[in-house]
């Protein structure tokens, strides 16, 4: 299926969950990411259960705590 992940078109296997996509994208600290799916912020508990569909638009929004 085709997905848009952080603005880039990607072809990925069907049935992938958010957690699967985080692994696929080699995100080492999923705790440091908020995930927006088609404009909605997902609950963390939904990462395991939410299956992605053709054309979904996913944004990984990283926690950035630095400033000094």
């Amino acid at each position, binding site marked *: 299926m085709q997905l848009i992940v952080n603005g880039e078109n990607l072809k990925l296997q069907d049935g992938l969950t958010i957690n699967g996509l985080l692994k696929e994208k080699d995100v080492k600290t999923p*705790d440091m990411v908020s995930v927006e799916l088609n404009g909605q*912020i997902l609950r963390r508990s939904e990462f395991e259960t939410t299956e992605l569909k053709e054309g979904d638009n996913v944004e990984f*929004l*990283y*926690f*950035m705590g*630095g*400033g*000094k």
Partner: protein
Amino acid sequence: MSLTEQQIERYSRHIILDKVGGKGQEKLLSSKVLVIGAGGLGSPAILYLAAAGVGTLGIADGDKVDLSNLQRQIIHHTEDINVSKVESAVNKVREINPDVDVRIYRTHVRAENVREIIRDYDFIIDGTDNFAAKFLINDACFFEGKPFSHGGILGFDGQLMTVLPGETACYRCVFGYPPSPGSVLSCSQAGVLGVLAGVVGSLQATEAVKYILDEGDLLTNKLLTYNSLKMNFRKIDIKKNPECPLCAENPEIKQLKDQPQPVCNSERKITR
């Protein structure tokens, strides 16, 4: 308020802009902006806001200048090492622009003091270095109804968003709760490109100036992300989250609370 001849010359490159003019410059001179954290983000923000003639500039920080700060915290100079950051910053502001009334708060913001500190200001800039402070500032600005700019940096990446509390998506609408301390990589562990802080802090100052002038489009309901390696700027649409623990209809958070968090700063120990 009317501008003196000296002020007309000092701010001439502002005044000549049709979206600023004498009126806009007077707005800036009568405005009050608070910068929390006189570090990587705070340094350029304070310098530009002072130069712009923001009439009252608050600076809050509880740290002293450390040698390892100077790679990016451009308001502090080598001779300022071991001087408190607010004192170091206030000296530079006075050198840049005597029009500015600087108010200093030599403290870290905490649940017990933050509402009082921000209360008198029109716009707040979050230039802090840890999640406890970032969430606290978001919550305090919500309770006090203060617009603010969130900024964050790590490695080669930065982000910012502007929040008009109650009206637009807040920091918690996107990020909910602070991440578990164990998963937080600090700047001293991860490093940070010095000039990155300059880019993001300058963008935060731009938002403050636009808010005061009431011109242009604020970075509300958007998260701007910046990757300096790819030179990519992306504006990601966000919206108020109906499950936000702070600004949704039945919020979980009804008052300010301190949260122990590791800091993104090399001179202090990382607590886990």
